[in-house]
């Protein structure tokens, strides 16, 4: 069992009546709403929160990539990853991930990830993502090529990391005469690869086949998570091996306070800022981004999406967020982790407008009173060697 602190780095100063006045927090949300002076404070505060995660005993920190959005204003997670590589000493740095189709040529990802891995002395977890739905609108990138570009880029990056250069690459989307990135990664054969997914069958099968790790994207009802993790384990079985539990991860908002009542009193409005404002207008699947069958399946699941949730009761019932006293949160999380069969918890400890002091208190209470209990009940983390052996030996 491993524990990560995940940060979306939201831009959380929006007008009170944002949801009435604006259609979306994505793609076309006017950037006149952005305030760089406040942004300066935010970026530095959010980085401090990730650095603090190392001090209090988390196994790793996570950053991710979004463009033209208040939901997460971290268009380059590699910049954040490289800062963290210098400012932390022990934790894994999970950049989940780089949206491969947007890096042209994709060997840029091979280079930048290798830089972070070398600077950090081999602490990078390389997240490779197709890119969120809204990004295809933001960059006018044709989503019907999302999968084929992604696959070609992923293969090229792994090849660039494992096969001595220079070599030629003549693919459908990129024709490169001299592939020869400097530097190469610190970890051999390459950093662990994590792939987040919202439940596309295509992604689940790809991750299972390559023996990478699958991270469930949050905000869906718990039953949808469960189905996806089951589907992943089945896909691993089909590929002739048993999934290692640390091949899967569950990304979830967490808030711990002294009592259940206090937790909700402190958290609720910040969570609803996130739900009502920052999730507004999220287009999960542009046309052609996944097969029509996957889109139809997830389209139905979207009915039970956090963005449509309006009450605390629904949040508790659906497991959209883990909120309460240390006792409540650890019992809940133990059940969920066992039910899902996951080996990584990626906690969102800051969400929406949750301020610095409450975020820090939340993280501290979790690290002191929840994490040690879950580790004791659910098992120590596998070492890197154990994990790679388990996956190779099957």
């Amino acid at each position, binding site marked *: 069992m491993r524990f990560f602190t995940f940060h979306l780095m939201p831009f959380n100063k929006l007008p009170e009546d944002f949801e009435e006045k604006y259609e979306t927090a994505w793609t076309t949300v006017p950037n006149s709403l952005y305030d760089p002076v406040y942004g300066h404070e935010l970026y530095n505060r959010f980085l401090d929160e990730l650095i603090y995660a190392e001090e209090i005993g988390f196994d790793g920190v996570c950053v991710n990539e979004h463009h033209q959005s208040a939901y997460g204003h971290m268009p380059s997670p590699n910049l954040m990853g490289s800062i963290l590589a210098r400012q932390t000493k022990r934790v894994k740095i999970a950049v989940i991930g780089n949206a491969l189709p947007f890096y042209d040529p994709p060997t840029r990802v091979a280079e930048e990830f290798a830089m972070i891995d070398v600077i950090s002395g081999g602490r990078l977890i390389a997240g490779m993502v197709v890119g969120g739905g809204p990004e*295809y*609108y933001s960059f*006018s*990138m*044709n*989503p*019907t090529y999302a999968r084929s570009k992604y696959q070609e880029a992923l293969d090229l990056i792994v090849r660039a990391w494992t096969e001595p250069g220079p070599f030629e690459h003549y693919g459908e989307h990129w024709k490169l005469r001299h592939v020869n990135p400097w530097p190469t990664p610190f970890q051999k054969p390459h950093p662990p690869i994590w792939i987040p997914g919202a439940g596309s069958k295509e992604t689940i099968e790809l991750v299972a086949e390559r023996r990478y790790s699958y991270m469930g994207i949050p905000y869906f009802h718990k039953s949808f998570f469960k189905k996806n993790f089951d589907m992943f384990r089945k896909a691993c079985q089909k590929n002739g091996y048993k999934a290692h539990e640390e091949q899967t991860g569950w990304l979830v908002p967490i808030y711990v306070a002294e009592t259940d009542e206090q937790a909700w009193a402190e958290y609720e409005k910040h969570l609803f800022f996130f739900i009502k404002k920052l999730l507004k207008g999220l*287009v*999960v*699947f*542009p*046309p*052609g981004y996944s097969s*029509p*069958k996957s*889109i*139809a399946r997830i*389209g*139905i699941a*979207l*009915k039970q999406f956090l963005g449509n949730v309006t009450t605390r009761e629904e949040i508790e019932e659906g497991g959209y967020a883990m909120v309460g006293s240390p006792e409540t949160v650890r019992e809940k999380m133990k059940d969920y982790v066992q039910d899902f069969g996951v080996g990584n918890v990626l906690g969102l400890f800051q969400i929406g407008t949750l301020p610095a002091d409450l975020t820090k208190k939340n993280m501290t209470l979790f690290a002191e009173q929840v994490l040690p209990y879950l580790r004791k009940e659910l098992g120590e983390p596998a070492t890197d060697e154990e994990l790679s052996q388990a996956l190779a030996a099957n």
Partner: protein
Amino acid sequence: MNSVTESKFIDVRGKRTQITIGGEGPALIYLHSAGGEVEWTRFHEMLAQYFTVYLPAHPGFGDSRGLEDIHSITDYAWHYVDLLDVLELETVPVVGFSLGGWTAMELAILRPERISKMLLVNSAGIRISDAPMGELFSDDIEKLKSLLFYDPNSPVIEEAMPLSYEDNRILMWLKAREATARVGWNPYLHNPRLPDHLFRIPCPVRILWGNDDHLLPVETGKFLVDALPNATLEIFEKTGHMLPYEQAERFVEEVRKFLIN
């Protein structure tokens, strides 16, 4: 009255292509819109009273295969060059609605001698810089209704598109969106080179446009009537993008008048 219709698959240069043929009279090719109206609808039936209507599904739409070999609207146009050969249609009139209108223009540029007359309905393919197009790739059904129809509460909407993920037409609709995105995501629903080639289309062209089309503004029709060598324009008041659904009788009458003298 029901016309005799036949749905079948034909092989077009290796692409398995769904085609429905119905009616009696002179041949007419109907090239469908992004909405993917590849099933026989009310206005196809009305057209079939006067014409033998050929209704093919573009690759990627309906049960037509071959989207993996389509990378631009020109590939669709070449597909129709091949389809005319397979159907042994030497010269034929074409009715093209929206995406189908764009395809018809590209086809007429490649093979002007094969197209006798062309009727364009709220056609895609052209971008007018001061008349911005709407967002077809929204996944918000309510927004799409107001984008596409003059009356967002019109009962004809039910005919034209699924209204929820539970509708059994949803898979076909998602396929239609994927295929449209393949050729129309970027550049968005147009070919920046098309205006320079419109002079190559010598045949008579009748252009119909809904005055309240929020997807492809009526200014596009006004541009086309000037840019095409031999075109006339009819603007339908109180009509949106989905003109053949919204004004089926008038649409069919326009086709009949234009094609049968």
